[in-house]
């Protein structure tokens, strides 16, 4: 395998591994926990590095994942004091931990290849240089193995606890009543987020992990209502962002991780605009159509409400639409013409009468 393909493979695996727990973060409205965790684990990595003196030690991953969970606990503790609101609690915790991490790196780790640039950007381009070689056989880049393992853990967890996760996400009260501890699910999920973040950290850096975790699931959320589909789509969008990001980076001669994040953003914007049902274009078109339809309904309901009542002589008149319903004359006339075409109203000496179709329409509208 050449380095080019290896980098794309790693990018794909990282993106897929991030997207899976990301789906649940987005659905559980905890997207910003990934932001907090990805910043905070830096301290764990640095401290573990001081102990092991080996940047590739698996101990780093454990320590960092542990820091991630501590962050979650800290935020919750702070929240529980009720001295600050939840958003502020997140905003207070992770800057401290991140600052400690950055300062430690700047002061004591300056001579190893853990610098602040690597923290923010990762070093995907260098990933193929760090290889696993066993008795002379080159087994491929280490990052690929690490991230594949993380991906596997994520898949296993979601496959095993699919039902519980779904329940805990959409109805945590019911889940608790049925005996699935939402707390257990919560902390396991947070541990997964931490592990995934640590694994991806080396490749794409701390802040861009957030992009890979949140943007593809959010895009998928615009496209589908099914959890299964959302998982699949998130992974696909993540992988496509990873690979296209790589080529964008090649083309621009810029940071790969940055380009991957940019691509997730571009896909999100595409989804935002063109998602078949929820996209802005679809919404605008539906709204334009509905506005018209809605005007007809309004007219029918209005006439129906005042039918056979003494005031109908004044209420159900063409002029009245302008005066009271608040439509300008031109628009009212348009709606009226349309309504006549659709056989909803009849007009007689400026008075308006519902037809049978119109009356049914009004009744249907009111029952709805």
């Amino acid at each position, binding site marked *: 395998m050449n380095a080019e393909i290896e980098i794309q493979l790693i990018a794909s695996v990282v993106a897929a591994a991030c997207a899976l727990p990301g789906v649940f973060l987005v659905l559980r409205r905890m997207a910003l926990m990934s932001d907090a965790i990805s910043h905070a684990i830096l301290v764990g990595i640095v401290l573990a590095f001081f102990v092991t003196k080996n940047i590739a030690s698996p101990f780093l991953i454990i320590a960092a994942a542990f820091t991630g969970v501590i962050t979650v606990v800290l935020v919750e503790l702070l929240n529980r004091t009720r001295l600050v609101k939840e958003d502020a609690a997140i905003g207070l915790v992770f800057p401290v931990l991140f600052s400690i991490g950055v300062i430690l790196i700047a002061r004591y780790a300056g001579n190893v290849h853990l610098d602040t640039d690597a923290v923010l950007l990762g070093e995907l381009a260098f990933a193929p240089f760090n290889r696993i070689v066993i008795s002379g056989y080159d087994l491929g880049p280490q990052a690929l193995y690490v991230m594949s393992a993380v991906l596997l853990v994520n898949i296993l967890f979601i496959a095993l606890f699919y039902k519980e996760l779904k329940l805990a996400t959409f109805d945590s009260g019911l889940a608790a009543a049925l005996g699935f501890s939402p707390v257990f699910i919560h902390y396991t999920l947070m541990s997964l987020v931490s592990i995934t973040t640590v694994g991806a950290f080396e490749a794409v850096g701390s802040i861009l992990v957030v992009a890979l975790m949140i943007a593809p699931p959010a895009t998928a959320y615009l496209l589908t209502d099914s959890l299964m589909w959302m998982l699949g789509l998130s992974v696909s969008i993540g992988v496509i962002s990873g690979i296209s990001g790589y080529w964008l980076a090649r083309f621009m001669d810029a940071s790969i991780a940055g380009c991957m994040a940019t691509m997730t953003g571009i896909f999100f914007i595409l989804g935002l605009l063109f998602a078949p049902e929820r996209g802005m274009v679809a919404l605008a078109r*539906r709204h334009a159509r509905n506005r018209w339809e809605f005007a007809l309904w309004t007219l029918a309901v209005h006439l129906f409400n005042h039918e056979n009542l003494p005031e109908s002589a*004044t209420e159900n008149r063409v002029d009245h639409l302008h005066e*009271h319903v608040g439509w300008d004359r031109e628009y009212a006339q348009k709606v009226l013409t349309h309504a006549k075409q659709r056989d909803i109203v009849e007009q007689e000496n400026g008075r308006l009468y519902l037809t049978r179709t119109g009356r049914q329409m009004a009744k249907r509208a009111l029952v709805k």
Partner: protein
Amino acid sequence: MDNEEIKAIRVDDLTVAYRDKPVLWDIDLNVPPGVLMAIVGPNGAGKTTLIKSILGLVKPAAGQVLIYGKPYQQQRSLVGYVPQRESVDWDFPTSVLDVVMMGRYGIIGWIRRPGREDRELAMQALEKVRMQDFANRQISQLSGGQQQRVFLARALVQDAKVYLMDEPFQGVDATTEKAIVELLQQLRSDGRTVAVVHHDLQTVIEYFDWVTLLNVRSIASGPVAEVFTDENLHLTYAGRVAFSRESKEQKNSLSDGDKQ
């Protein structure tokens, strides 16, 4: 109809839609001055939306609202508003007196700060709701009933002719409820019009003299004696329930109401 006496609140053919779904359908409402009106209906009936569209907080798809014969925008100073208690953060760093003075902000106008007169008026309003001893308290130290009284005091300093209140009895103890009712009845006898979103069907007859039954469309509106009938209540709660889950509860409270 233009010869009739001028209505305090007049709503014509009001339709409100949220994302193309109707929340209120063609509502007509004529509330004469000097009545105390309950707005009653099941959850999701659009009671809050009705109040908010009268206040111009929600943009209607069709229809118009007149306060004493003119659009709300021209009659703002005539209208006082008591939002739902839960709609604000009671941990906000401010005092009771400060919140009450907010009722004067519309009269004070842009940029100018509240002065001594505003302070005195706010204190008077607090006395009316018997909260004068709490004037300098931080609002987070208040109980639910006290919070509600503060909101009422804030509306009182508005010195309005028409009051719109969203569930002023929500989460309030019996003593406070009684005090609030007395206050509302006092307002009515001063010739003011008070419209109240109300949940407890059992107290409608006791507290109010006017009622609007609402369930997405207006079922009936008028004097309690004429309008608050079993038939209308059934129409409001049983037939066209907007969300079927709530219908059970509502039926229960309905049957409770029947026992009276």
